[in-house]
C-alpha cells in the first residue's frame, strides 16, 4: 500500500500538468554549534570565527526559487549593497552557502544545470533529477502548505532532510535539491537550514531562461577535476 501511494505521488509530479507558477523566497539559518571550543586547535578557532561572520552575512541574502510547470531557477539576491559591506572577502564566501552560482531544473528532461565558476572557468554542471528520497509520513505545515518529510544520505553518510508539499506537485527545490514528490519548502543539510518564508503563486506563466554560457560538464567529471586540484595543492604544500 505504501509503495502504491509513493508511486502515485511520483506519477503526479512528473506527468500531471496542472498550472503552477510561482516564486518562493527562502531564508538561511545555521543550526547552532555546541561543540567544545576548548579542544579546538588555533587554526580551527580561526576557522570558527571566520565562519560566524560568513553566516551572519548569509542570513541577510534572499534565496529565490522561480518556477513554472516545467522549469525552475534558483539564485541568490544579495542582502547588502557593495558600499555597505565591511569585509568583502567574507561577504563573497557568504554567497557560496547553499551552492555556488545558479541552478536550473527541467522536469521533462529530468535535468539540472548548475552554472558556476570554479577552477577559473565557467561551467554548466549537468546532473539528473533523481527521485531517490526516503519518504516518511511525518508532516507539518509551512506557510499554510501541508508538507511531508523526506530524507536521504549524502556520500559522507550524513542525513539530508527536506520538507516538500504535494500541494504543488513539482519535483523542484532550492540549491540543487530536487526529485521529491512536491516542491521542496525546507532543507536541512548538516547544520545549514533553508526555509521558505514567502510563497507567491502567479496566474501567468513565469518565463525561465536556461543558462546559456559555460562549458558543459557532468557533476562526476567536475568532482574528479576538483579532487585533482586539491591533491596538487597538497603536494605543493609539501615542497
Amino acid at each position, binding site marked *: 500500500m505504501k509503495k502504491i501511494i509513493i508511486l502515485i505521488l511520483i506519477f503526479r509530479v512528473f506527468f500531471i500538468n496542472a498550472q503552477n507558477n510561482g516564486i518562493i523566497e527562502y531564508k538561511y539559518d545555521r543550526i547552532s554549534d555546541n561543540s567544545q571550543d576548548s579542544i579546538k*586547535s*588555533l*587554526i*580551527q578557532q*580561526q*576557522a*570558527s570565527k*571566520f*565562519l560566524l561572520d560568513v553566516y551572519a552575512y548569509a542570513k541577510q541574502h534572499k534565496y529565490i526559487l522561480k518556477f513554472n510547470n516545467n522549469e525552475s531557477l534558483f539564485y541568490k539576491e544579495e542582502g547588502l549593497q557593495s558600499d555597505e559591506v565591511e*569585509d568583502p*572577502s567574507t561577504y*563573497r*564566501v557568504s554567497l*557560496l552557502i547553499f551552492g*555556488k552560482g545558479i541552478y536550473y531544473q527541467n522536469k521533462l528532461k529530468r535535468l539540472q544545470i548548475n552554472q*558556476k565558476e*570554479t*577552477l577559473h572557468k565557467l561551467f554548466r554542471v549537468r546532473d539528473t533529477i533523481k527521485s531517490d528520497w526516503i519518504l516518511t509520513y511525518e508532516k507539518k505545515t509551512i506557510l499554510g502548505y501541508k508538507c511531508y518529510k523526506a530524507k536521504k544520505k*549524502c556520500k*559522507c553518510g*550524513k542525513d539530508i532532510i527536506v520538507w516538500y508539499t504535494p500541494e504543488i506537485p513539482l519535483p523542484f527545490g532550492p540549491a540543487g535539491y530536487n526529485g521529491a514528490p512536491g516542491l521542496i519548502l525546507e532543507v536541512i*543539510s*548538516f547544520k*545549514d537550514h533553508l526555509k521558505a518564508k514567502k510563497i507567491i503563486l502567479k496566474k501567468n506563466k513565469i518565463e525561465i531562461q536556461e543558462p546559456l554560457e559555460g562549458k558543459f560538464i557532468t557533476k562526476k567529471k567536475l*568532482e574528479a577535476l*576538483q*579532487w585533482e*586540484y*586539491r591533491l596538487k*595543492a*597538497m603536494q*605543493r*604544500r609539501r615542497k
Partner: protein
Amino acid sequence: MSFHNFYKINLTLSLLIASVSFVNASNGNLTIKGNEEPTKKEKVERIDPATCWMLADAIEVQHCGHVGCDFELWEDRYETCLSLVE
C-alpha cells in the same frame, strides 16, 4: 588505504603542525611596528604559505562536516590565502 582516509589522516597531522606554526608566528617571528592594531591582512600574512591548504580544509570541515563537502568554499579560502601570502 582509500584516498579519502589518506586525506583524513593527512588533514589531522597537518592541523597539528599548523597549530604549532601558528603559535610560532604569533610568538614573535614577525613583529608588528608601533602600537597599531594588526589589520586582517597582516594577520593572514603571518601565516606560513603552507598553512593556506590547512586553513581552507579546517574551514570546509567545520562548515559541512568533512573534507570534500564544499569544494568552492575550500577553493575560495585556499586561493584568497595564497594571494595574500605569495
